[in-house]
Every structure is written in C-alpha cells, then in structure tokens.
C-alpha cells in the first residue's frame, strides 16, 4: 500500500516536471546539440574523427522571436527541414523577404519571396542549405540561437554577422 502511494506520487511528480519542461522549451528557451560541421567555425570548429555526441556543441535557443517572426539578416536559426519534417537544421539567415540573392555557379539572381528566408551554413563546403533546397518559409523556423552553453571554453553569445562573400545585393 505504501509502495503504491510512493509510485503514484513519483509518477505525478514526473508528469508535472514533464509538463513544465515541455512548456518552457516550447515557449521560452531550450538547449539543443549541434550535429555536423556545416556551421564551422561558429559551432563544432574541430572536425574530429571521434564523432561522439559528448563533444558536440550545445546552444541556447530562444523562442520569443516566434511571437512576431521578426528576424534579422545574420541570425542563426533552428528550422524544420523542408524535405523531411522529422529533421531540424541550424543555419544562418543570409537574406530576408524582398532581398535579391545570387545563385551560385550561374549569373542568375533571384528575389526571396514574401514570407520566406534564405539560409546558409557558415561552412559553405560542408553545408546543405538554401543553395540546394531554395528559400524556406519563415513558418518552418522553430527558434533563434543566442548563446553557446557547451563546451565551457566556448561559452558566449553567438554573433549576428554574415561572412562577406554571402552578402546579398
């Protein structure tokens, strides 16, 4: 009888903690690991042969930007992949709606449509981004990265800057 009570109380506690954690991570902040090297050297600067998840960077993602969907050029965002809704990617926004962007390897220039943005990884060689799948709707963005929280030697704010060769005209 006492064990059942104890189990029931523990279950209630876990449920409450789960609810609160889910609400906070949906509406305010969450911490996500960064996999892959498409954002080197901003995240995961060392390409290590030991691809353990303990060495991945962990970043703080804020969800307050999802109220008005107001982003600026140079923000690093977390978004749902347009070709596979179960995957999430982290890239930098390099152009906003209405900006012109030059497509690589050709003389074409395209304008980013209304409600969309152009995302690119800082490490262009390794990055699968808007240069392959085109501009993404802003509705797919799930948060903005503000700080690195792991590893301790690189804790700090994530800069809002774009590499010079990616400037839209």
């Amino acid at each position, binding site marked *: 009888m006492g064990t059942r009570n104890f189990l029931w109380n523990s279950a209630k506690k876990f449920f*409450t903690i789960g*609810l*609160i954690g*889910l*609400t906070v991570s*949906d*509406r305010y902040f969450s911490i996500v690991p960064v996999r892959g090297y498409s954002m080197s050297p901003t995240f995961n600067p060392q390409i290590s042969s030991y691809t353990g998840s303990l060495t991945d960077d962990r970043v703080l993602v804020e969800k307050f930007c999802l109220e*008005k*969907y107001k982003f600026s050029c140079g923000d690093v965002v977390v978004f*749902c*992949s*347009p*070709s*596979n*809704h*179960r995957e999430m990617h982290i890239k930098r926004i390099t152009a906003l709606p209405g900006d012109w962007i030059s497509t690589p390897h050709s003389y074409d220039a395209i304008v980013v*449509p*209304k*409600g*969309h943005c152009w995302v690119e990884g800082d490490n262009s060689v390794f990055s699968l981004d808007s240069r392959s799948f085109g501009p*993404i*709707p*802003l*509705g*797919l*963005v799930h948060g903005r990265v503000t700080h690195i929280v792991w590893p301790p030697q690189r804790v700090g704010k994530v800069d809002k800057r774009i590499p010079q060769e990616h400037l839209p005209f």
Partner: protein
Amino acid sequence: MSRLFQFVRQWKPIIKEGFSQSFLIAKFLCLLHVTNTHVCTPVLVYGPSMLPTLNLTGDVVLVEHLSQKFGKVGPRHVVVVRSPENPRKTVTKRIVAVEGESVTFLVEPALSDRSHTVVVPRGHVWIQGDNIYSSRDSRQFGPVPYGLILGKAFWRVWPPDGFGSL
C-alpha cells in the same frame, strides 16, 4: 526586531498558501499549453475558400496534432497550416496530393480551361480549398513543406447544426 519576527510568523502560512496556489495555477496553464499545442485544440476558421465544407462566417473545429507528428496526415484530410506567405497567419485547406504524386489543376477556373501539371516534391504537400474559385492555395504559392502543417481538423463543434465529423 521582535515586531519583525512577529510579523513574519503571522504572514508565513499565508505566503506559503499563496505560493502553492500560484504553483497550482502554473501547472494548470502548462497542461493547457501542452494539450493545445501537442494534442487537440479548437480553432475558429472563416472565409469562403472551403465552401461548402466550412461556412463563410466562421466555424469552430477541433484540430488534432498527433497525426501530423506521426506523419499520418494524407490526401482528403482538412488541415490547418501556417501560411507560407505570412508565418503569423494560419490557413485551413484540404490536402489534394502528397509527395511524389502529380497534380493537374486549372490555372484560372473562372476564366479559362487552361490546366497545369506539377509533381509534388519530397517532404511537401499540395493543398487546395474546396471552393477553387475563391481560394488562395498551392495553385498560387506552390507546394507546402510538411513541417508547416499544424494539425488535422476532424470534428466541427460550432454551429450546432453542423456538429459532427468533417
């Protein structure tokens, strides 16, 4: 000094009660948020684009999110999606085709018979309003990524004479 201790001793149980009630309210709000975002929520939909299925002046429908999370949303389902043209707006349309299928549609149904055929790319869906004459949908803004789908509308709650499954 002793007056301060007396004051604290008097108010301590009331403050504790206040904290515990606030915590209860916070827990309830978290439960409400999780249910509305991840399980089921009522949504008011209005506009002419889904006539005759949904009324012009507004219907309240129940939208469930679990099907979208498990990838079970498919053709002929009425879905609520975040608009690709304005992420702060949500639109309600019907899924006509999923990835890999090809869609043939009339470019301007009121003006001509010209039709166009498109293959829906991987990870996207093609949505159209039931009222093709008055609907802004995939025929204008193209196929929509599956990640923009918020949920499937499965039951109408208001008006009462329309109560029932969609």
